[in-house]
C-alpha cells in the first residue's frame, strides 16, 4: 500500500511536471521600474498589424511588439531562443527540431481565458503563410521548407528541401495563433485578425483610436517578464516637420526616423539622444515595365542620365549620404564597389531616347509612333516632406529638359500601396526599401515575384537575374554568394529597373527619460521590453 501510494505520488508529480504551467505575471529581475508611457511618432499608419500580410516598416515595428518568432537575434548577432527554448539540427542540415516553451500564452481577448501557445500554432502559421491564397511577400523566403511535423504539443520538426545558408535565422518568422484568424486556411487583408491581432509578444493591442493612434499595453504574462513601460502609443504624422516639433515640445517621446532637417536641432538639445540604427536602405524611382515605353532599357537608363542625383542630394538633403549604383545599400555586404553610379549627362539621355526611336514633338515632348513620353509619377503622401517634394519637382524638371513629361501625384499611403502593389496603376513610383542584414533581393527582382501584393511591382524580368538569384539561394558557400551578388548588382544596375538614388542617414531620436534603449537595426523594437523610464520621469 505504502509502495502504491508512493508510485501514485510519483505519477502525480510527473503529470504535474508535464502540465504546462499557467503563466504568472512575472516582473523582470533587473531592478528597473515599471510604468510610464512611450508615445512615438510614425510617418504613417500601418496597413495591417499582422506579420504576414504587411510589407512596410510601420507595420513591422508594431508586429515586433506584438509577436515572437521561434528564435530571435540578439544585439551581438547571436541567435537566441524565443518561443523555442532549444533546437536540434540534423547532421546534414536538413532537419530542424524545435522544442517549444511551455509557459507562453497568447494575448487574451476580452472575456476569454488565456490560451497556451503550442506546436499547433507553429504549424498553422507555416501553413497559412504558404497557402496559395495568402497574399504575403514572405512565401518566397520559405520555399526551402519541405514539410513541418508536430512531434508533440511542444515539439515541431521542419524538414528542408535542401540545406541552406543561415537557415536557423529564418525561423525568426513571427508565429500566429491558430485561434486568431477568422479563416483558418489562408490570410487576406480582409480578415479581421490583421487589424485586431493577438500575439505572444511583450505588448498587446488595446485599441486603435479615431486619430489612427495604435495603443499597445504591457503584456503582464510576457514569458520574458513583464515589459517595463506600460504603454506604447504609435502616433501617425502625415507631415514629418510636425513630428519633429512634437518631439521638441514633448508631445511625443521618440521619433523612429528623424527628418534630416531636424537632426542639428535635436543633436544640439541635451534632452534628446540621436541613435543611428539602419544603414541598409535606399530611395529610388521605380519603373513600371508593363508600360511599353518603359520596357526599353535605353529609356530607363536615359532617365537616370537625365537627373542630377548629386545635386538633388546636396540641395535637398545636405548631402547626407552617398549616391548608390545598384540594388544594395553601401552598408551591405553585397554592394559591388566596382560599379559606379551613372553620371549626370542629359546629352547622353537624349541620345539614348533617340536611339530608342523617340524624337521631339512640336511641344518639346519626346514621342514615338505618335505616342508622347508622358508619364505619371506616384509618391506616397507619407513621404511628403519638404525635401521629397523638392526631389519630385526636380525629377520632373530634369526630365522635362530632355523631353519627358512627368505628372506627379501625391497619394495617401494605403491608397498608394494599392496602386503600386495591387492595381499596378503607375508609370513611375518613388519609395525606399529597407533590408535586414541578408541583402536578399529575390522578392524585388525575380520574375516569379510579379503579381498582386508582391514586391516586384514593376514586373521586371530577366532570365540571367532569375538564374543568379536561384543559384545564390542554393549555394552553401558564402564567397560564391558574394560573387553572385556582385554580379547581380552589376546586371541590375545595367538593366536599370529603378533609378537608384541614395542612402540617407537613419537616426532615431528620443527623450533621455527613456533608459536602456537598444534599437534593433532593422526591426527596431526587438529589445523594447528592457527599456524603462525612471519613476521620477513617468507622467
Amino acid at each position, binding site marked *: 500500500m505504502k509502495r502504491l501510494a508512493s508510485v501514485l505520488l510519483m505519477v502525480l508529480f510527473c503529470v504535474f511536471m508535464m502540465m504546462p504551467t499557467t503563466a504568472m505575471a512575472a516582473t523582470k529581475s533587473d531592478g528597473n521600474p515599471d510604468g510610464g508611457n512611450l508615445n512615438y511618432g510614425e*510617418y504613417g499608419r500601418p496597413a495591417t498589424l499582422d506579420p504576414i500580410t504587411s*510589407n*512596410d*516598416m510601420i507595420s513591422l515595428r508594431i508586429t515586433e511588439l506584438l509577436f515572437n518568432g521561434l528564435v530571435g537575434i540578439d544585439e*551581438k*548577432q547571436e*541567435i537566441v531562443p524565443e518561443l523555442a527554448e532549444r533546437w536540434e539540427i540534423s547532421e546534414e542540415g536538413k532537419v530542424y527540431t524545435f522544442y517549444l516553451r511551455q509557459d507562453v500564452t497568447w494575448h487574451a481577448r476580452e472575456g476569454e481565458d488565456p490560451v497556451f501557445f503550442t506546436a499547433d500554432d507553429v504549424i498553422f502559421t507555416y501553413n497559412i503563410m504558404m497557402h496559395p491564397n495568402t497574399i504575403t511577400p514572405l512565401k518566397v*523566403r520559405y520555399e526551402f521548407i519541405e514539410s513541418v511535423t508536430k512531434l508533440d504539443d511542444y515539439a515541431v520538426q521542419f524538414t528542408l528541401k535542401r540545406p541552406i545558408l543561415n537557415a536557423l*535565422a*529564418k525561423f*525568426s*518568422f513571427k508565429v500566429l495563433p491558430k485561434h486568431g484568424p477568422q479563416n483558418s486556411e489562408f490570410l487576406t487583408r480582409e480578415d479581421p485578425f490583421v487589424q485586431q491581432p493577438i500575439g505572444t509578444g511583450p505588448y498587446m493591442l488595446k485599441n486603435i483610436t479615431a486619430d489612427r493612434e495604435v495603443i499597445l499595453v504591457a503584456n503582464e504574462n510576457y514569458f520574458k517578464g513583464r515589459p517595463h513601460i506600460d504603454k506604447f502609443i504609435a502616433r501617425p504624422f502625415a507631415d514629418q516637420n510636425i513630428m519633429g516639433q512634437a518631439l521638441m515640445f514633448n508631445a511625443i517621446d521618440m521619433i523612429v526616423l528623424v527628418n534630416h532637417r531636424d537632426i*542639428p536641432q535635436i*543633436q*544640439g538639445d*541635451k534632452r534628446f539622444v*540621436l541613435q*543611428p540604427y*539602419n*544603414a*541598409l536602405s535606399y530611395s529610388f524611382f521605380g519603373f513600371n515595365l508593363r508600360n511599353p515605353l518603359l520596357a526599353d532599357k535605353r529609356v530607363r537608363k536615359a532617365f537616370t542620365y537625365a537627373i542630377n542625383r548629386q545635386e538633388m542630394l546636396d540641395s535637398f538633403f*545636405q*548631402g*547626407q*549620404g*552617398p549616391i548608390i549604383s545598384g540594388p544594395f545599400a*553601401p*552598408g*551591405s*555586404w*553585397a*554592394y559591388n*564597389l566596382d560599379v559606379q553610379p551613372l553620371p549626370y549627362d542629359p546629352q547622353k539621355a537624349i541620345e539614348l531616347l533617340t536611339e530608342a526611336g523617340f524624337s521631339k514633338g512640336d511641344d518639346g515632348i519626346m514621342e514615338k509612333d505618335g505616342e508622347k513620353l508622358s508619364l505619371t509619377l506616384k509618391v506616397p503622401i507619407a513621404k511628403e516632406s519638404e525635401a521629397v517634394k523638392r526631389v519630385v519637382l526636380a525629377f520632373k524638371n530634369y526630365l522635362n529638359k530632355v523631353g519627358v513629361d512627368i505628372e506627379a501625384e501625391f497619394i495617401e499611403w494605403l491608397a498608394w*500601396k494599392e496602386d503600386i502593389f495591387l492595381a499596378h496603376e503607375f508609370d513611375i513610383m518613388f*519609395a*525606399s*526599401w*529597407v533590408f*535586414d*542584414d*541578408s541583402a*536578399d*533581393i*529575390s*522578392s*524585388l527582382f525575380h520574375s516569379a515575384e510579379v503579381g498582386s501584393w508582391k*514586391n516586384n511591382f514593376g514586373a521586371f524580368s530577366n532570365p540571367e537575374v532569375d538564374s*543568379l538569384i536561384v*543559384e545564390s539561394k542554393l549555394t552553401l*558557400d*558564402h*564567397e*560564391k*554568394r*558574394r*560573387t553572385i551578388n556582385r554580379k547581380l548588382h552589376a546586371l541590375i544596375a545595367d538593366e536599370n529597373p529603378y533609378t537608384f538614388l541614395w*542612402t540617407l*542617414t537613419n537616426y532615431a531620436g528620443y527623450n533621455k527619460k527613456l533608459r536602456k534603449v537598444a534599437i534593433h*537595426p*532593422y526591426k527596431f523594437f526587438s529589445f523594447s521590453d528592457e527599456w524603462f523610464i525612471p519613476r521620477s520621469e513617468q507622467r
Partner: protein
Amino acid sequence: MRKIFLICILILMQAFVSYAVDDPLKRGMQLYKKNHYEEAAKLLYHHLSASGSKQQAETYLSLGLVYFANAKLYRELYHASIAVQIDYLTKLYAADSKSQSRFVKFYLGRVLMEAGELIEAAAFFKKFLEDEKVQPQYKAHATVHMGTIYFLQGKPDKARNLWSGLKVSEPRTLTALAAAYGRYGLKEKNPASMCRQALDQLKQTGKHPSIDSISNIIEVYTREGTIEQGIELLQHADLKGYFQEETLIKNKVIRFYDSALLRNLAMLYEKASLKYLTRAAAVADEKLKGLAQYYLSLGYGYFGRPEESMKIIDSFVSSARLPIQFQNKAKVAQAVNNYLLGKQKAAKAQFDALLQLKAEPYLVADILLACTRYNIEFPQAVINATALAQKGEDRRYYSVNFALGRYYLGQKDYPRATTYMEAGRDKSNKNRIEFNDPLMLVDLAKTYHLTKKYSESLEIYFEMSKQFPAVRQIQVAMQGVYSMEQKSAGDVKIF
C-alpha cells in the same frame, strides 16, 4: 588638436592672402581643411615644381602638414585593416567548402606576420609552400615572407640562407625580396636596383606594376629616403586594386588584399611630412620657419623620435609669442617625450600641471589621447574629460568625446566607446570626412566592427574610400566578414 590645426590654417591663409583665389596653395589648404589629404597632397606636390621661391617655402610647410595628417590616418587604417583582414581570412580559412581557396593561407600568413603572430604566420606559409598545386613564383614569394619571419624571430642567418637561395626574376617576388633586404639593411643586394630591374622588366612588356609591387617599391624608396620617387610612383597607382584574384569555380571569385600597403603608405607619408617640414624650417622667413619648427617638433614626437622633438620643443613651451593653445599643445608633447625618454615622474607632473589650467576641451582631450596612445596610466585625464563631455554634444566638446571614445576602445569597453564617439559625431553628416575627423571615424568604424554592427562600419569606409581609395581593402574584407556573420531572415520592406 583640430582647433590648433585650424589656427595654423588661418595663419597660413593669411600668409597666402596676396595670392589669387584659385592659387593652388590656397586650394591645397582648403582641401586639407576638409580633410581631403590625398587631393591636397597631389595638388601641392605638383605645385612645388611650379612655384617660386617664396611659395616654395610655404608649399613645403603645407605639404608637411598634409602628409603629417595623412600619415596619422594611414597608421590608423593599417591597424583597422589588420583586425578586419584577420577576422575575414580566419573565417574564410575555417569555412567548409568544396572549392577551398589556396591563397587564403598565403594572405593569412601575411596579415598574421603584420600582427606579430609569427608562429601562426609561419604555419600558414608552410601549408601554402607544401601545397603541390601552388605555382613556383608564388612559392618563391611565400619563401621571402618565411625569411622575414626568421628575421623577426632573431634568426637572420636562416633568413639570409633562404633568400640567397632564391632565383627570382618575376617582378612581384623581386620587389618583395627587395623590400625585405631593405627592411633589414642587408648589404649583399641593392634593393633600389632590384626595384628598378622589376620596373624595367614591366616597362619592356608594357605592363603596369601590380599593387603589391608598388607597395614593396614604396617601402624600399621610403627606407632609402627617396621620398619623391615613392610619391611619383603613387601618382598613377590604383590604390584600391586587389593583390590577387582567385577564381575557384563558376561564380566564385575571391579577391585578396594586403595590409602592408597601408603600413607602407603611412611610413612614406611620415617621412615625407618630416622631410617637408624640415625644408620649411630651413627657410629665412621667421614666421614660416617658426611654424614649421613647431610642427616638426610635434611630428618627431608623434612618430616616436622624442630626442629630436625635445631639441626643438622647449622654445615653444615658454614662447610668449605663441597663442596659448599652441603652447599647451607643445607642453603635452613635451610631457609625452619625457615619458618616452624614461622620465615618467616628470611627465606625470607636467600632465598634472596642465590639468590645473582652465579646463579647455582641446587640452584635456590632447592629454587623454596621448596617454591612451602610449598606455600611460593617468586616471585624472579620464575624470576631467568625462566631466567636460557631460556638458554637451556640440562641436566644442567634440575633442573630449573623441578622446574618451578612443580611451574606451583601448579598454575594450565598446558600448562606452560608441556612446562617446557618437556624441562627438556630426550627425547631420555622420560619415563625411569634411565634417568629422577621419581619425575619429576610423575608431568608430573599428568599434562597430568589434560590436558586429558591420553596416555602420561599412558606411564610414564607403564614404572614406572616395578620398582614400586604399580603404577598399578594409571594405572588401569587412563585407566578407559581414556576409558570413549575418543572421537574418531575408526580409525587406517598403517605406
